[in-house]
């Protein structure tokens, strides 16, 4: 954090550049930021709601589209943030080899950009859904923000480790590509844990992403349990993981110039 504070301007510069290069100026930017997630949402809605006629108690009369939306966007931020962060150092090799600055800033800028972009998309999507009468529980917003913070910090932690390993071991990216799909279906995004048979539920509970994704959906979707002790544990765990990830990153960083 000290590095962040003294390099505020640099971090801001990286973030600005990251946002610009990804979504501004390119005609496809808006598509990536909003249309693409909306399309995904539409496809899942059609498949599960209209084709399979998915219906479970947790929906409680609310629409399946909203249920999906509040799970899908947090996933997108995380997936894209960590995915892009994995490449953050390697794709900036020219910069890393020529300028002295805290390399972790590149990871933070990448993850932050993804979160900001999809937060904006999320806001637009929720507003649109509200027009059709699918409203979220506003009372859940404070706890959602707390969970989002933990979610973000967790993405930073994974991004740090992956980006550093990727410098030395370029196969990581390909390995992750196939893993992401698996993780997507092993995380309660298209379904809720409660709808699963007992045997599967125990297994999925081992997925560390299950808890935050479930909780982030819960607080916005029905807001039945606004605060849970687990939320705090999750956020603290994320912070600890970030601290450990940062140690790992700083240690691996020492030899970046050898491998880039």
């Amino acid at each position: 954090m000290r590095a962040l504070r003294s390099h505020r301007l640099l971090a801001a510069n990286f973030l600005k550049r990251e946002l610009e290069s990804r979504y501004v100026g390119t005609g496809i930017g808006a598509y990536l930021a909003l249309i693409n997630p909306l399309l995904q949402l539409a496809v899942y809605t059609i498949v599960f709601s209209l084709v399979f006629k998915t219906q479970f108690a947790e929906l409680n009369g609310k629409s399946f589209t909203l249920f999906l939306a509040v799970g899908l966007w947090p996933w997108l931020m995380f997936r894209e943030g960590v995915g892009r962060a994995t490449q953050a150092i390697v794709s900036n090799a020219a910069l890393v080899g020529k300028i002295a600055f805290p390399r972790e800033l590149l990871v933070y800028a990448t993850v932050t950009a993804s979160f900001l972009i999809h937060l904006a998309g999320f806001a637009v999507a929720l507003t649109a859904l509200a027009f059709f009468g699918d409203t979220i529980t506003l009372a859940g917003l404070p706890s959602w923000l707390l969970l989002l913070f933990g979610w973000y910090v967790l993405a930073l932690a994974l991004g740090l480790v992956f980006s550093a390993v990727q410098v030395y071991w370029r196969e990581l990216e390909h390995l992750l590509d196939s893993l992401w799909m698996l993780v997507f279906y092993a995380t309660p995004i298209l379904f809720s844990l409660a709808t699963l048979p007992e045997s599967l539920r125990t297994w999925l509970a081992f997925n560390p992403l299950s808890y935050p994704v479930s909780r982030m959906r819960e607080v916005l979707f029905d807001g039945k349990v606004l605060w849970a002790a687990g939320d705090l544990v999750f956020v603290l765990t994320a912070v600890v993981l970030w601290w450990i990830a940062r140690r790992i990153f700083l240690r691996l960083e020492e030899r970046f110039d050898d491998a880039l």
Partner: protein
Amino acid sequence: MTRSSPLIIAENLSKHYASIQSGSGGLRALASAWRRVPPRDAFSALENVSFTVRPGESLAIVGENGAGKSTLLKLIAGVVKPSSGRVQVAGSMSALLELGSGFHPEYTGAQNIALSAALLGIPAAQLAAKREQIMDFADIGDAINKPIKTYSSGMVVRLGFAIATAVNPDLLITDEVMAVGDEAFQKKCIRWVEGYLSGGGTLLLVSHSMYHVQKLCARAMWLERGRVRMAGDAMAISQAYLAYSQEKDAQDARAHPVAEPIAGDHGLYHVQRLQLNGRESEARLSMGDDLSVVGDVFSPDGRAPHVAIGLVRADGVPVYGTGSEIGGAPLRQTAPQVFQFCLRYDAVSLLPGQYAIRAHAMDPEGMRLFDTKEAHFSIDGATREMGVVRLSHRWE
């Protein structure tokens, strides 16, 4: 000044590079980076280098290519981390390392200005105010809005220097950058550096130009194969280094004489024979002796070719050059395709030392130069005069 605390402290700096390529063995590289063990087949670029630089001092680093100069600057600039040892810089710094350094190749010039500002912790707005000054100094026109990767090396240096002048750092690190760009710009840079130094700035300079070293730096350090060979007064070090490299050049020249053109009638104009005072090589003269340069030039089409003759010092410094075309002296045909030349220098007043004659075959139009044949000679004598040649003179 001498009592102020050091601006740069370098202690036992060493840097080893892995010679294995990334990609294959990636996991092994990862493991050795994690365990902080030396990479396999490590190549040592720098070995136990220590020095300090106080504010207001200027230090030149000289040495041959591959001696570790650039690595040392990178370590000080913080771009790479030392394998062992410690380096500390207490102050703001502008590093103009190898070409394009300090710049993001994908960013435009203007974006790089903002990036440099951010790196130095200067709010972009504050630097924007100096934009005029930067643009003025760099003088690269509209290119400022194009990505750096489209710049010529001269433009990159211009921009780099311009930014450095605008931020006025505590420490300026330059790696050969003053040798890039046209002469006018070089002079502008030198003028600025002199002003910067007299204003209390600190300079770390890597240069092959002993002129720059002596002009800009008080101290110098001579690196050889990653180690400090000599350190001290810039004048003394630069002279010692010059003497060493002249000697080395001369040795190289003796060890690798310019490849002789393939004998026989291969299809181009070439010098077949070159003799100095009747000898093919290693002619010895005393100061004031005459020197005759005689040789044959092969002409594939039987037309009379021209020849250009250059006299150089052993380290390659040109002394005098002329040619049969300039002198209006056509070559004499001695065989259907062979033409002879004979050039005579009367009372050669070169100072004692090692020299060489280079003969270049040229086409009959005197337009194109085809090959080079070199013959070495030495001038013996004892004199305390300095320079290359004794100019006709008298004391009054």
